[in-house]
């Protein structure tokens, strides 16, 4: 076992020492307490003693060398012919902190009572002025704007110092700027404008919604004619049961068909989330928004948990949803993942519905009508309707949309209805 002797700190002000003279050479025997080397410090010469008896293995510095306090000075091997080697140093030895005594030292010869011969004290240093921000917006406002795909630069903030706040972003989301209209100069003798009527809240909300959709969602439409003969016959048969069961409507058939087909086409339930990079968020379950016509507009209550339900259950939920919509209570419904608009009964053969922001698609159903169709070369009269699927092209391409529609048509034409 080797013992290391280090340069001792022998006075409060000692920082280093010079090796004056070695009294022992490597290989010499040393006794505990015997002087092995003389050092010189700023104050005096001093002798360093061996702390153990043994053999001097190594002199870590030669005569005349200058060492700092704490530096290795000598190694002494204690009795034993074969040494195991130097003591291993732990892997991460902590840093040697400066010894307090090493921090001390005498005052230099200081001038007495001189006045300002050194020049002035520097002033505190200060940063340069920062430029004004491009946009002032709270972190919350920024997040909402990001989620809704709204550009902050176009907003005016109502907060302190013109800061854009949550309320400013939400207002923009609800009522985006209408397209600029060229000012029409009044010509002499022009008829005065007819008096207008304030748009109702619902109309304003619808207007905001559809305008935003058109402005931000790149949509296209896919049509498919569906033969609903079998479906209608089945429906009539179910409704002939009488009793407490609710009367089934075509909407109920459509809902069951959607619930059965959509699991294989999850992209229909996704939505586009702006960001860097944008996210495609797929909802796990179908929550169908059902467009319900009202006197002044429309409401979209939401039906969820339709998977595996029989037509009777679906009908009950459908009726409840419509009731909610008619009594103005649909506002608390969860968000829809797909919307079904079966307003074809009003008389349109087909129509392209507008996708609700936050959804990937909307399915519009035209009126149930008779049409002359050709099947395997033979002409016949069939009962059916045109389905028009409008999709967000960011999420759904033509082939995907068409494949879904085909699957839906097959389901509607093929039967397998469950009461």
């Amino acid at each position, binding site marked *: 076992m080797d013992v290391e002797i280090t340069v001792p700190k022998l006075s409060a002000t000692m920082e280093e020492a010079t090796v004056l003279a070695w009294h022992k050479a490597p290989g010499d025997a040393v006794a505990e307490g015997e002087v092995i080397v003389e050092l010189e410090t700023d104050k005096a010469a001093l002798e360093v003693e061996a702390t153990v008896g043994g053999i001097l293995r190594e002199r870590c510095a030669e005569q005349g060398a200058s060492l700092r306090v704490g530096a290795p000075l000598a190694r002494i091997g204690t009795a034993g012919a074969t040494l195991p080697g130097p003591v291993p140093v732990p892997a991460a030895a902590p840093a040697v902190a400066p010894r307090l005594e090493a921090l*001390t030292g005498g005052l230099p010869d*200081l001038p007495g*009572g*001189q006045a300002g011969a050194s020049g002035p*004290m520097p002033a505190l240093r*200060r940063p340069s002025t920062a430029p004004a921000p491009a946009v002032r917006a709270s972190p919350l406002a920024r997040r909402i704007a990001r989620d809704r795909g709204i550009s902050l630069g176009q907003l005016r903030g109502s907060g302190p110092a013109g800061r854009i706040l949550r309320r400013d972003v939400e207002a923009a989301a609800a009522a985006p700027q209408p397209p600029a209209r060229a000012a029409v100069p009044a010509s002499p003798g022009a008829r005065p404008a007819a008096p207008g009527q304030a748009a109702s809240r619902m109309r304003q909300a619808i207007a905001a919604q559809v305008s935003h959709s058109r402005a931000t969602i790149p949509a296209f439409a896919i049509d498919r004619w569906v033969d609903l003969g079998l479906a209608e016959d089945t429906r009539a048969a179910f409704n002939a049961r009488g009793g407490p069961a609710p009367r089934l409507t075509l909407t109920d058939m459509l809902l069951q068909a959607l619930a059965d087909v959509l699991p294989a086409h999850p992209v229909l339930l996704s939505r586009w989330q702006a960001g860097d990079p944008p996210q495609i968020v797929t909802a796990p379950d179908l929550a169908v928004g059902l467009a319900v016509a009202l006197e002044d507009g429309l409401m979209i209550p939401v039906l969820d948990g339709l998977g595996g339900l029989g037509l009777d259950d679906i009908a009950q939920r459908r009726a409840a949803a419509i009731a909610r919509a008619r009594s103005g209570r649909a506002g608390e419904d969860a968000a829809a993942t797909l919307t079904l608009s079966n307003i074809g009964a009003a008389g349109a053969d087909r129509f392209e519905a507008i996708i609700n922001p936050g959804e990937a698609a909307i399915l519009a159903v035209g009126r149930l009508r008779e049409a002359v169709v050709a099947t395997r070369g033979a002409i016949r009269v069939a009962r059916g309707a045109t389905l028009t699927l409008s999709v967000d092209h960011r999420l759904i391409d033509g082939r995907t949309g068409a494949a879904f529609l085909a699957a839906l048509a097959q389901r509607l034409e093929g039967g397998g209805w469950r009461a």
Partner: protein
Amino acid sequence: MAELTYRQALALAMAEEMRRDPRVILMGEDIGASGGPLKTTEGLFDEFGAERVRDTPISENAFVGAAMGLALTGWRPVVEIMFSDFLGVCYDQIANSIAKQRFMAGGRMDVPLVIRAIGGGGLRFGAQHSQTGETWFLSVPGLKIVTASNPLEAYGMLKAAIRDPDPVLFIEHKALLGTKADVPVGTDNLRPLHGTDLLRTGDQVTIVATLAMVPRALEAAAALAAEGIGADVFDLRALRPMDTTDIAESVRRTGRLLTVEEVSRLGGWGAEVCAQVTEAAFDYLDAPPARLALPEYPLPYSPGLEDAAIPSVERIANAARRLLD
């Protein structure tokens, strides 16, 4: 201009002020013939004698309270508290008497005194001899509190503190005692007792530190600069009153704030800086303000544990890099 160690800067400041004003008197344990346990008053006993460089028994309560009595009756005492941790022993006199005396007297009495407390860790002195003490009186109005991170501040602020008519708690750091700098010495060269100093400029992040964390912050900033990350580095200097105007201005440019303190995070001054800067520069923040501080336990004795507890250069640089994620 003289190249002085921090220690020498303190001693010289006291010497100059004692030459200038015969009413300045020093008190503390072993500050006389011994020159101070940390050699902060070396040479002063020889020049000014035992009356004005006065050794006290170990009675912080009494001699700190006596400092107020001296200050109220025409003298300007400078008391040395050997280790900041001992401020606990005389906390009552400082917080309840010294800080409140002028106010309770309706402004009719001044209390011109300085309490110099030498604190800080990293020297394996153990939990009861390693606090900086810089935040122990942070919520006591009526005290001025300053911290000296280098010999220039030690010299210039101590002189200003001695001349100030109000009580000043002057925090020094024992690990800085041997650091050197050029100091423009001269009787009237003072440093202000309020306001921050911007020691290094850069545009990506703002770093604020006191005492021994200042040189570490500067080292971290140098390392970051090599990676193309520029940092404004501030020495906070004055904790009470605290002025974060310049720090906020810097954050308006960088958008990112990192405070580094040798104090526990809860109850540290970093939270105050972050709160003030968030209020002043809310719209410019690109990341939440971040704080590096001591962990929530007393400082351990074992060297590795002590070093791990105190924010290192590497940790400071990493914290700054994280702000840029």
